[in-house]
């Protein structure tokens, strides 16, 4: 009988603990990467439970992966539990926290949440295909639903605050910071004559939102072009504009 069998741990558990030990004691980051990779299927499985709630599955998986990394970094080797056992509540907790922080109302019917989630990509696809912004009727036809449901889902999406103004780099649809694709810091709203009048409410917005507002209200670019430049969907740009303006207005009160 091997030592591993005597301590009741499976081969996987022993391997995990050895990798954890190498990471903790020797600073072996390759060991950490292997732990992350080997537990990603578990993260994906857990993420699928939360699909269809208005958030793309890939985004939920990314949030879950953050929970996994935190769990690996926090795991106490002296505890007699498997890493997978420890990871599961951490990943679920991270995902739940994500939904709670982002404010998706649980009162929104699931069908509308799903429709809202599908609509953003549909609008972008139709815009590309038609060469113009699609009508509600065209969006409804593409989604196989009614115009009324499209309008309702748009409103539901507006209430969904996943588009946090505080979202940092990497928190967006393609996992990259849209500002990285824009190039040098723009002049625009940062120009001295504007700085005096638009500060401080505008200045407190995150760079990305300020840049979007500059493109929309100074350059006069349509949403479609802004969306292309920053690598977001039209709906995402629309909501960021709305939220930014509302936030600035609230700061004046």
């Amino acid at each position, binding site marked *: 009988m091997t030592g591993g069998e005597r301590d009741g741990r499976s081969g996987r558990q022993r391997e995990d603990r050895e990798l954890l030990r190498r990471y903790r004691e020797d600073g072996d980051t390759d060991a950490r990467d292997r732990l992350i990779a080997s537990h990603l299927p578990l993260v994906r499985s857990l993420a699928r439970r939360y699909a269809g709630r208005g958030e793309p599955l890939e985004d939920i998986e990314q949030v879950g992966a953050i929970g996994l990394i935190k769990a690996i970094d926090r795991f106490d080797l002296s505890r007699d539990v498997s890493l997978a056992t420890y990871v599961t509540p951490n990943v679920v907790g991270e995902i739940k926290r994500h939904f709670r922080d982002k404010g998706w109302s649980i009162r929104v019917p699931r069908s509308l949440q799903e429709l809202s989630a599908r609509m953003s990509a549909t*609008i972008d696809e139709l*815009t590309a295909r038609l060469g*113009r*912004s*699609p*009508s*509600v*009727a065209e*969006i409804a036809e593409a989604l196989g639903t009614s*115009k*009324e449901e499209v*309008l*309702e889902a*748009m*409103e539901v999406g*507006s*209430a969904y605050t996943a588009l946090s103004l505080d979202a940092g780099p990497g928190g967006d649809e393609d996992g990259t910071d849209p500002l990285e694709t824009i190039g040098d810091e723009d002049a625009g709203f940062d120009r001295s004559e*504007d700085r005096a*009048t*638009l*500060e*401080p*409410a*505008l200045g407190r917005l995150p760079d990305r939102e300020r840049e979007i*507002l500059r493109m*929309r*209200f100074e350059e*006069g670019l*349509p*949403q*479609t072009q802004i969306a292309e430049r920053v690598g977001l969907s*039209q709906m995402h740009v*629309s909501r960021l*504009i*709305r939220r930014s*303006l*509302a936030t*600035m*207005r609230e*700061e*004046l009160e």
Partner: protein
Amino acid sequence: MADGAERIELSVPLDDAFGGVIRLVAGGIAEQASFGFEAMDDLQLALERLLAETGEQERVEIAFEIGDDGVRALIGPVAEGRLSTVLGEPDGGTGTLGLRRVLSAVVDSFGVEPAGDGQIVVRLEKLGTARL
């Protein structure tokens, strides 16, 4: 807006809780006018930002006119004071991205019409022929 435009009137509490109702109605109006998503979004944003500046009154009347060439929205009567000031200021003059600048970007024209007793009606026009 051409004669014979269809007219829809809405009287709604001026409360954040009804913001979604106004957006939904405006969305439906825009759909009737065959607006594209972006033009619809512009109209909704114009109304949202305008109503945020209308001050302390409890209700607001909004009349939509759907013509061949787009949508006209008449908001009011509302108190002249603050809104006239905000709309009359130079772009950016409010210490933030001002209403005038926002409206200039999202609607094709806007203006103020006197309604007596220190009140005004604000007119917004959004053309829809280009289906932007």
